[in-house]
């Protein structure tokens, strides 16, 4: 009898374990290019218009406030890449390393004219979009800058490509997605950084930010959330839409 109850208890424990197999995996997830919160290793970084705050999240349920870093003004976005933080500002892109997670050190700066500009990175390149219009200041340029970051301390512009009204962007392999706001969604072939070409353009998918994730593209926009499959990069396929209901 005692053996039976122990067996049943064991069975119950095993079944519980099996039931929780879809619980979150260790580590962080993926955010968009316009994020102001990001995670690198065991540190959460948040940015305000002027500063970056770090939180030690070695025990994820217990975030401990750490160092505060002054960044300047017009700070907009933060993107983690290979132990570095790429920070989009209204005047350019700041690069910090996180060797000392609690107090990141500035190692590089890529400067451009004043505009709104998220940044993403992959391989030896960073992709920065510049957008004119409110709330960004005086700039009247809309472009995609491809920047060589093989030397993080001196990023160099390879080429600037004209865009319509870019808000957010995402990169995966040889493909780059750009949310063009009211003007739609653009899919670009970036296999040659000096000759970026358009693969597809969806003028009716109003898009702010994009996240490529496991060959699926998440798109946020004023009409809702779109999900596309880009298993075939030349032909995106709409999977679903979560509509906004005003």
């Amino acid at each position, binding site marked *: 009898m005692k053996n039976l109850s122990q067996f049943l208890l064991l069975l119950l424990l095993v079944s519980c374990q099996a039931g*929780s197999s879809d619980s979150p995996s260790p580590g962080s997830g993926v*955010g968009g290019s316009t*994020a102001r919160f990001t995670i690198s290793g065991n540190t959460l970084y948040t940015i305000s218009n002027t500063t970056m705050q770090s939180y030690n*999240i070695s025990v994820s349920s217990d975030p401990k406030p750490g160092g505060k870093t002054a960044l300047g003004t017009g700070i907009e976005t933060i993107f983690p890449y290979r132990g570095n933080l790429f920070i989009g500002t209204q005047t350019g892109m700041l690069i910090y390393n996180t060797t000392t997670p609690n107090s990141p050190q500035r190692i590089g700066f890529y400067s451009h004219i004043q505009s709104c500009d998220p940044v993403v990175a992959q391989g030896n390149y960073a992709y920065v979009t510049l957008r004119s219009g409110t709330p960004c200041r005086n700039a009247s340029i809309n472009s995609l800058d491809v920047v060589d970051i093989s030397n993080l301390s001196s990023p160099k512009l390879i080429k600037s490509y004209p865009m319509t009204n870019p808000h957010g962007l995402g990169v995966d392999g040889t493909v780059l997605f750009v949310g063009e706001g009211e003007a739609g969604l653009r899919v670009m072939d970036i296999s040659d950084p000096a000759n970026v070409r358009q693969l597809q353009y969806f003028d009716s998918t109003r898009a702010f930010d994009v996240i490529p994730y496991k060959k699926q593209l998440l798109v946020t926009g004023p009409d809702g*959330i779109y999900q596309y*499959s880009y298993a075939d990069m030349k032909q995106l396929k709409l999977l679903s839409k979560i509509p*906004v209901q005003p």
Partner: protein
Amino acid sequence: MNRLFLSISLLAGFLALDGCYGRHTPEPPTTSDTYRPVYAAYAEIRNVQVRGPQPLRVAGKIYVKDDYLFINDIGTGIHVIDNRDPARPVNLAFVSIPGNHELAVQDSTLYADNVVDLVALNIANPRNIRVVRRVENTFDYPAFPLATNVRFECANRDRGVVIRWERAKIDNPECYR
């Protein structure tokens, strides 16, 4: 003689500094709009609640973790979506977080801004999300309106948190930017 010279140079120096200061400090605008803060009590904004699924109103930032999608509804909270089948996403719940715009996930913890606080929520069971930690007053207090070159009634932290600024006629507002 030397001492007199020193005094005069110091005085001249101070005058010069004062002159610089005067030239670079903007005068308060006198003709522009005036604003006043609209407050919410701290207890009111520090009220995070998990509700049933809600329709998406204004899509903000998004975050993907494993098979789940987290969508910020600007200023109000986070929609939790079961995205195991991206062709048929299932809306599971809405976490109401006043003032929320940003989010990130590590392990089974979701971090979100709640006006001036950072909240950590346990999402191990996306159907039973709960606050596990709150870091109070870690973000800047919203002490001024977004607009520049305006005058406004100074914000008073003791009266709560400023949730928005409304245009109003105010006699001699003491703050400006």
